[in-house]
């Protein structure tokens, strides 16, 4: 079993232990806001923020060695931070942002158990 410490270390940000990873505080704030707008908290379950989506995305980008990807996210966040998400649905960066948000959310503890109430991945005696 992979140690939980290893997971935490990575999510806590490869870059110097800051939760924002390679983003500036301002960029991370925008990321946090946009991901929560895409998958918000509602009466059924907590949303992207509580599920640690921004921290996961920041950590994945921090350790990536794809310079183009990193640049895209920095400029994309800046732009979306100003414009907001409404009306941007055909923007390629919106698609990327939404996909990463959905991936991170629906693979999180909150996403799998609280939101989706997933029933599998258990040993079934009878089925």
């Amino acid at each position: 079993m992979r140690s939980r410490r290893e997971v935490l270390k990575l999510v806590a940000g490869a870059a110097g232990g800051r939760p924002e990873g390679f983003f500036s505080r301002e960029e991370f704030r925008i990321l946090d806001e946009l991901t929560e707008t895409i998958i918000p908290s509602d009466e059924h379950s907590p949303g992207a923020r509580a599920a640690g989506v921004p921290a996961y995305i920041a950590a994945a980008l921090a350790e990536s060695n794809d310079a183009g990807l990193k640049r895209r996210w920095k400029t994309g966040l800046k732009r979306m931070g100003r414009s907001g998400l409404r009306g941007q649905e055909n923007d390629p960066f919106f698609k990327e942002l939404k996909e990463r948000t959905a991936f991170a959310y629906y693979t999180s503890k909150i996403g799998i158990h609280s939101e989706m109430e997933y029933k599998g991945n258990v040993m079934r005696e009878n089925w």
Partner: protein
Amino acid sequence: MTEIDFSKVYDAVVVGSGAAGGMAAHVLTSHGMQVLLLEAGKKMNIEQELRSMEWPYDHPRRGLMPPGHRALSHNEYTVRRPPYAQPNAKSKVYSYIQDDYGADYTKNILVDEREHPYSGTNYAWVRARCLGGKTNIWGRLALRLSDYDFKAKSRDGFGEDWPISYADLEPYYDKVDLYLGISGQKENLPHLPDSLFQRPVALNAAEVRLRHALTSMGRTVTPYRAGVTTDGLKHNKYRSRCYGRGACSRKGGCDIHAAFDSPTGLIYPAMDTGNLTLRPGSVVYEVRMDNATGRASGVSFLDSETMRSYEVRAKAVVLGASTLESARLLLLSKIANSSGHVGHNFCEHIMGPSVTGFVKDLAGRPRTNDDGRPGGFYLPRFRNLTERHLKFIRGYGFEGESGASMFPPNAMSTPGFGAAFKRKVREEAGAFITMGAFGEVLPRYESRVGIDAALKDKWGIPALRFDYRFGDNEKRMAEDMVQSALEMFEAAKIEVTAVDRELLTPGWSIHELGTARMGKDARTSVLNQFQQSHDVKNLFVVDGSSHVSASCQNPTWTIMALCWRSCDYLVERLKRDEL
């Protein structure tokens, strides 16, 4: 036992440890033969790799690969020509099947493309180099062929009939079923014979609906026929029965081995007989001949780490290195090819056309455990059985499934964002049903692989060059796949939400077959009905390269049944000193 006795002449040396090589090792050792099994890859700690029940959030990258490792994208296969992984590529490069969630669990099972180049026409060649080969991660759909396949030429005139009929192979399919375990439901279809099934998986609501709707069309939706033991196997201490955990739907294997894999199903039990010597890390590069007798004397191999070369001797040489690797070995050794057919008649399955649908009245229902089973459903071939289709010959079947998986199937396709998006994904996630087709590619003489002497793998062994394309029959069949899928969803009143019409790059099905076909005539075939070389009597090729045509059923169960039959014959001949 891993120490080779180089002074010894083994009864048989088996090359490769996947479905074919594993089965050869099992059958030969069970008859008391002294067998040496050479496998190019390593023996891995497979349970440690697969971790079938690990939650995504307990994995540092939610199942994705770390930086420095990457998979070739669909696009790279389609646009670029081989060799795909350029030698200066910085990251480790894997085949497309790694380009997904769960990739980190299986990355070490698949080869790094940079070390295994090939050239020629586009081909997505998935290779697993480790003990057990591709059986560590196969999809487990375990199907029989019938005389509609073995005698296809007699029905439509194309290609050749197999030198055997269903009656010849049926007892061996039975043996494979009983020894390895298979789950399924009897349907009494002449074109898809039943196995000796253990408990079937249950179809869920949308699947049952499709089954009912198709009955009047004379088509069948049957529970996935899985090479999985659902009731357990008393004679095998290495494998558990299936606990319906659902890890099957994540790319990767079954760490309790309810799903068949060659190491726990065949090789460890063969080791327990005391008759098997296994040497992983042994890259065979040549079959050695004794020119005085015209018989094979053994094989030469390289230690994959030290690169040192060795030669071992055996009374019989059994190749099970997988279809294309066995063909490569025959071509490199320049043997068994008086017919000129080695490398030719290469075939497989087309893949790509698929439909996804939505069953409205299933939306918003309380969550159920839909994927706690080893598979969904199979929809067997229905074309060119009783009536002739005007546009193409042969047939295709569909694999499909429905219900809520761990990752919601609609998370990426649902439009919008915000509270409405979130609710829609939640409420509709369990209401989708999807199926994709696998169709027969005709074995054409001109579809072939050869040796590219200028291109070498990491071990200095010349690589394969592909000369292989789909023809008109495949393209017309692909159009019909889409048409018929739409028509069946309509009959079941399932709303179609997505259609894929595109034919994927050749190789995508991972069912490569042909290249050393069996036949009665030594002038037009490489092997006889016992997978024995027409030219070299003590040489057998027991993998999919021997198949005369691809049929549309997944090949692994047939590979193993044929291999069992051939190895019984080999032993009988060897005992009578007739090899």
